[in-house]
């Protein structure tokens, strides 16, 4: 053992333990010291994505518009769906794009930055977290395009539910961050996490009421003897139904029996429960990430 007999002077910085295990709080504090890096990485991800296209960011706005047209035409021909079905689908689809791009890009965030992870010391959690951040910014751009669509089509939104949308987004960020922190290091140890995730995302899509209505699925589960709440175990469901409730509209929703005919308080409750549960998962993910972090540089 090296003896550290000499006391340190007042103005000199303290000796600091390198590569120490952190508590969740310390980990969060360290990440927040690097928040500007997260901001720069988000910008970088978006810049790189649109750099070589002439339309740039406009592409992210064209996508929802195009989807709107496709769904309107297809479902009109099939005579499936209901009034303003395309708007309904878009609500869910935008949220779903946020979730699936977050997870797909975050999973590869560490493996694709291998050279950096092995050469520079920084809290590696910023890599998956900035993938989630980039997806959020991307979502906001699409939301602007969506708002324009709503305005142009003179679609009525449910203003009394609108304030829940930021809460839903925050919940979504928590869920995505928790999953991202688990998937990214996992992909370092087993590269086929990427492929596994593709399947997971596909299955998860159909487990979320995006192309079908929540109430129909819930009542089916109810008839099978499950609780209707079982759908809400999927953390994306509360987020999606809140956005649908707020955007899709005031009167039509209850008439068509698409969504739970409850007031904003019910939606808030479900969101908060999801956020709380996934907040715990997020803390556990940070802890797991910290443990995996120790061997990341040498495994890559």
């Amino acid at each position, binding site marked *: 053992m090296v003896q550290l007999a000499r006391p340190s002077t007042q103005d000199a910085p303290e000796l600091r333990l390198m590569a120490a295990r952190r508590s969740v709080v310390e980990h969060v504090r360290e990440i927040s010291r690097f928040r500007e890096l997260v901001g720069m990485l988000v910008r970088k991800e978006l810049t790189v994505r649109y750099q070589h296209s002439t339309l740039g960011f406009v592409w992210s706005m064209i996508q929802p518009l195009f989807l709107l047209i496709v769904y309107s035409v297809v479902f009109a021909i099939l005579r499936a769906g209901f009034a303003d079905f395309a708007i309904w689908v878009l609500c869910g689809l935008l949220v779903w794009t946020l979730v699936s791009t977050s997870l797909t890009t975050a999973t590869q965030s560490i493996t694709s930055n291998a050279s950096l992870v092995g*050469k*520079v010391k920084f809290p590696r959690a910023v890599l998956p977290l900035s993938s989630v951040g980039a997806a959020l910014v991307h979502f906001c751009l699409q939301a602007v395009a969506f708002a324009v669509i709503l305005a142009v089509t003179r679609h009525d939104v449910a203003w009394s539910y609108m304030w829940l949308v930021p809460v839903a987004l925050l919940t979504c960020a928590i869920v995505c961050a928790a999953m991202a922190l688990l998937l990214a290091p996992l992909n370092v140890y*087993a590269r086929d996490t990427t492929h596994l995730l593709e399947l997971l995302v596909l299955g998860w899509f159909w487990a979320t009421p995006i192309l079908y209505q929540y109430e129909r699925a819930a009542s089916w589960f109810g008839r099978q003897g499950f609780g209707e709440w079982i759908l809400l175990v999927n953390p994306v469901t509360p987020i999606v139904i809140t956005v649908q409730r707020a955007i899709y509209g005031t009167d039509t929703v209850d008439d068509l029996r698409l969504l739970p005919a409850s007031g904003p308080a019910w939606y808030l409750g479900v969101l908060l429960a999801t956020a709380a549960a996934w907040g715990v998962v997020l803390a556990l993910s940070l802890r797991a990430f910290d443990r995996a972090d120790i061997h990341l540089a040498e495994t890559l």
Partner: protein
Amino acid sequence: MTLEAIVVDGVSKSFRIATEPTHSLKERLVRIGRASYEVFHALHDIDLTIDQGQTVGILGHNGSGKSTLLKCIAGILTPTRGRVLVRGRLASLLELGAGFHPDLTGRENVYINAAFYGMGRRDIDRVFDDIVDFAELAQFIDEPVKHYSSGMYVRLGFAVAVNLDPDVLLVDEVLAVGDEVFQVKCLSRIKEFQSEGRTIVFVTHAAETVRQVCDRAIVLDHGHLVEDAAPGPAIRIFREHLHGQLEPGRAPSRGQDAIGDVRVHHPHEHERRHLLPGESLTIEVDLRVEQPVARPVLDLEIGDRTGQPIFHVDSDALGQPLGRLDGARTIRIEIGGVWLLDGEFPVSLQLSDRTTGEVIDWRERVTTFEVADDGRADGTVALDVKIVE
């Protein structure tokens, strides 16, 4: 009062080396419970304290654990046992421009790169111009770095790292890259750092850089710390470990036998074997290289009876570069006055390549010369001493 800048406390590091690498889930599942890896001990119980303001070289051959030690100090690798403590802001230059994104401009990459070292946007704003000046890239800074030459890339990476205002700077082999002008610039920047009292740790196998820059050197061999001393003795130990045990007179050489016959002449060699203090001496060295060397450097070291070096110089330090070396050539080195006292003095020679830092060949105690003093003074150096009053 000197404080420790770096404390390496009983650090061991071992890696699991998979005998058959598994990167897929299937292979992992199939092999659960069956250990298909070997444990490789990269570092064994290293204790090391580096004080603030020291410049320390870590010498070792490939696989000696020197880079592993540096990465443990940097906090990139976590020691298997033991701990590392560092005082102040640390910057590691393990790879210049690590993480530069080819599609982003120099400016964007500078910001992101510096942010990875924990700098905020405002801190970077303040030093941004210094970075660009140092890298000499003012007109290209808004070009994507994929259009940069490798030299420009390296310059920008180095410029970011040295402008981070680190208290402790870790450098791994990076000075071997880049053109000569830039290398000189890097070295002078590092000397500036030294004068500012910052702590620097160098990893290299270029012994000459250590001799030039460091005031202390440690030698690693197979993960063990085998020497911790001044650069001179440490370099000697490093060579012994690199090349096996020394045979007096003719040490085994590395790679090529570039240093051939070495002859010692002095004006009175036909009358007597020894020379008198102050007489001149000529050393003739036959050199032969298989591949041309653009910037060869010849080192001359003279030791005393105990083998301690008493004099060292190289052709660059003399201001007489050898010029391109291709095939065979004989170099004559003249020592105008050998002001030494009694004894047999061993001569060691080394030929290296300045551009790569690689030691091409070295000969420890390749020959000796003898000085006989008829006076009554003793010691090593002959000084002209008189009592005047």
